[in-house]
């Protein structure tokens, strides 16, 4: 049924332009390809040398739980970000709430770390390096996610970008927790968590323009 002449004319134009298209890979496959990037970064960090007390820290269930919570949130955010590039498959409110809950668990566990102002202030230079490394580690995974998302049609650019940012920066946070030997609360809050939060916010703002469907 052809309802209007407007319909006829637009359909003529679209049909004339109907070349075969390369179908977007399913989000799961794109996610698995993306996962190679943080894993490669982990291998590179391991080669450079992870924190010396890692074996001891991994014996602490709270440390492991913190890493797992952030990792799950990061991977979940990346997967949802990739899925958000497919119309009709944008994240549900429940999925976003689950991510926030995971991050809340991680935040509570970080909050349990000892506060030592003297150490935090004396290690200011190390702190700045940690922030810079966190951001540097997130760059490649973030760009890869943005490229993958742009291949689709992200209908909510800022949400997709925020999810990409959360995925990349969350993964960088986990990598830095395996690399940086400091467990002091202020150091973790300012130099590890704050760059992640700021980065996600910035990604959301920029995403409105860069990832508009």
């Amino acid at each position, binding site marked *: *049924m*052809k*309802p*209007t002449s*407007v*319909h006829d004319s*637009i*359909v003529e134009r*679209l*049909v*004339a*332009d*109907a*070349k*075969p*298209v*390369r*179908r*977007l890979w*399913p989000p799961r496959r794109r996610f698995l390809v993306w996962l190679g990037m943080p894993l490669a970064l982990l291998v590179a960090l391991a080669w450079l040398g992870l924190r010396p007390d890692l074996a001891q820290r991994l014996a602490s269930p709270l440390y492991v739980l913190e890493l797992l919570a952030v990792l799950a949130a990061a991977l979940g955010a990346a997967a949802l970000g990739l899925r958000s*590039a*497919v*119309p*009709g*498959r*944008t994240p549900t409110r429940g999925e976003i709430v689950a991510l926030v809950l995971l991050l809340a668990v991680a935040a509570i566990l970080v909050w349990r770390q000892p506060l030592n102002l003297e150490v935090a202030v004396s290690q200011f230079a190390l702190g700045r390096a940690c922030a810079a490394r966190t951001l540097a580690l997130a760059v490649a995974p973030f760009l890869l996610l943005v490229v993958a998302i742009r291949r*689709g*049609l992200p*209908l*909510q650019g800022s949400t997709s970008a925020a999810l990409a940012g959360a995925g990349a920066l969350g993964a960088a946070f986990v990598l830095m927790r395996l690399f940086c030997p400091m467990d002091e609360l202020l150091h973790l809050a300012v130099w590890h968590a704050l760059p992640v939060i700021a980065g996600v916010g910035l990604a959301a703002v920029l995403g409105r323009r860069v990832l508009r*469907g």
Partner: protein
Amino acid sequence: MERAQAGDREAYRELLDSIGPMLRAFLRRWVANAEDLDDLYQEVLMTLHRARHTYDPGLPLEPWLFAIARNTAADHHRRRTARARWEVLVDVTPETVAEAEHAPTARLDEILGNLPDGQREAFEMLKLEGLSVQAGAERAGVSPGTLKVRAHRAYKTIKALLRR
């Protein structure tokens, strides 16, 4: 759609012809006049064309299609609202007499235009289109409970606007 993705023009034409009426009915809830509807309809079809590589043949077409339509319509509505802010209102326009014949419709359009997107969508689906709560919820991509709450809020807002 799968055949259209592979470049089969006839299949693509068939698909566009078959979704056309459904899309126009959906978009009619977003715009007040026929001219706007035509613009929006073309915009949606262009977006759909640009995004046809994102459709996964393993999944139903409707959620994909209506997500594109809903988003394009919301963008269109936002642009219109933003443009309206810059327009100068005058007391008398040459069209006043002609428009007076359609005053109730215009008033309804105005009231619906003041509703938040979700509430307007719920009201139009349930009261203007006569969809069931279940069908409306599926189309809007929300639970039936959420749709009922939105519709209820829409009734309250409309009541308040009519009293003004």
